């Protein structure tokens, strides 16, 4: 039989889940709509579907980074939308979260710059490569700072996500390459491969976090 307290807890968990789901869905919709509008305009009309997808994935990385970063900077609001127990927990993790968010946003920007530097894009290839690599390297520097500030659970999670990402990459990109080599599938476009690395890295992180119970509502 449900007690009054367990009923209240259930309601609180549902409320805690509902806010980020609604915000996530809204942000996802607006991002997809925005990227689709942008790429269907005259300026980016020549962009391939693969490059459009790369822009979309890059935009999600930036939005995720900015969203969590704003939550960390404004813990009272952040505690309502992020999966933390209370405001204090967010304040404790502020430094680590911020460096991690900057890394995500820079990595997202790197993908967008590269996508916009290819055929039909608006950035010349060499500046795009320099910009993309610079964002990737600087972002990795911030990720390293965040990693060093993490405790053993997060470092373990990072290692698990890396191993998982490697396996998924081999499974998806590797099998596709095998099929393409045997003329059983079309060859991957470089930007598709790059986008897949991003998607797989994100997916692996979510799987690793879920396995350690970090996605369970707090």
């Amino acid at each position, binding site marked *: 039989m449900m007690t009054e307290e367990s009923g209240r807890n259930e309601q609180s968990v549902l409320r805690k889940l509902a806010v980020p789901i609604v915000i996530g869905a809204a942000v996802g919709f607006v991002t997809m709509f925005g990227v689709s509008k942008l790429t269907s305009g005259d300026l980016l009309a020549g962009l391939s579907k693969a490059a459009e997808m790369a822009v979309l994935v890059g935009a999600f990385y930036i939005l995720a980074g900015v969203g969590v970063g704003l939550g960390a900077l404004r813990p009272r609001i952040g505690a309502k939308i992020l999966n933390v*127990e209370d405001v*204090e*927990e967010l304040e*404790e*993790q502020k430094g680590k979260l911020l460096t991690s968010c900057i890394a995500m946003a820079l990595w997202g920007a790197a993908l967008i710059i590269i996508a916009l530097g290819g055929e039909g894009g608006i950035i010349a290839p060499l500046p795009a490569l320099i910009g993309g690599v610079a964002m990737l390297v600087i972002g990795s520097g911030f990720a390293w700072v965040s990693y060093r500030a*993490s*405790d*053993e*659970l*997060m470092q*373990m999670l990072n290692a698990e996500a890396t191993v998982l990402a490697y396996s998924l990459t081999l499974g998806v990109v590797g099998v596709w390459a095998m099929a393409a080599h045997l003329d059983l599938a079309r060859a991957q476009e470089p930007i598709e491969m790059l986008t897949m690395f991003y998607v797989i890295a994100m997916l692996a992180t979510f799987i690793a976090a879920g*396995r*350690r*119970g*970090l996605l*369970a509502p*707090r």
Partner: protein
Amino acid sequence: MKNRLKEHREGKGWSQGELARRLGVSRQTINAVETDKYDPSLPLALRMAKLFAVAVPDLFIDDWEPTE
């Protein structure tokens, strides 16, 4: 691995945040250990045992027995 961390923590009247602060780890780590989602490293297990003044096997339950 099953453990009695929550029992010992509550016995001291500490929140997960308080225990995390004392051990120098995140609350997520304490939560993951208490819910059997994560087995801590040996140094952290030793620090936990020292903090509660118990032996590591009193905190972490392992049913393994050596065979002849």
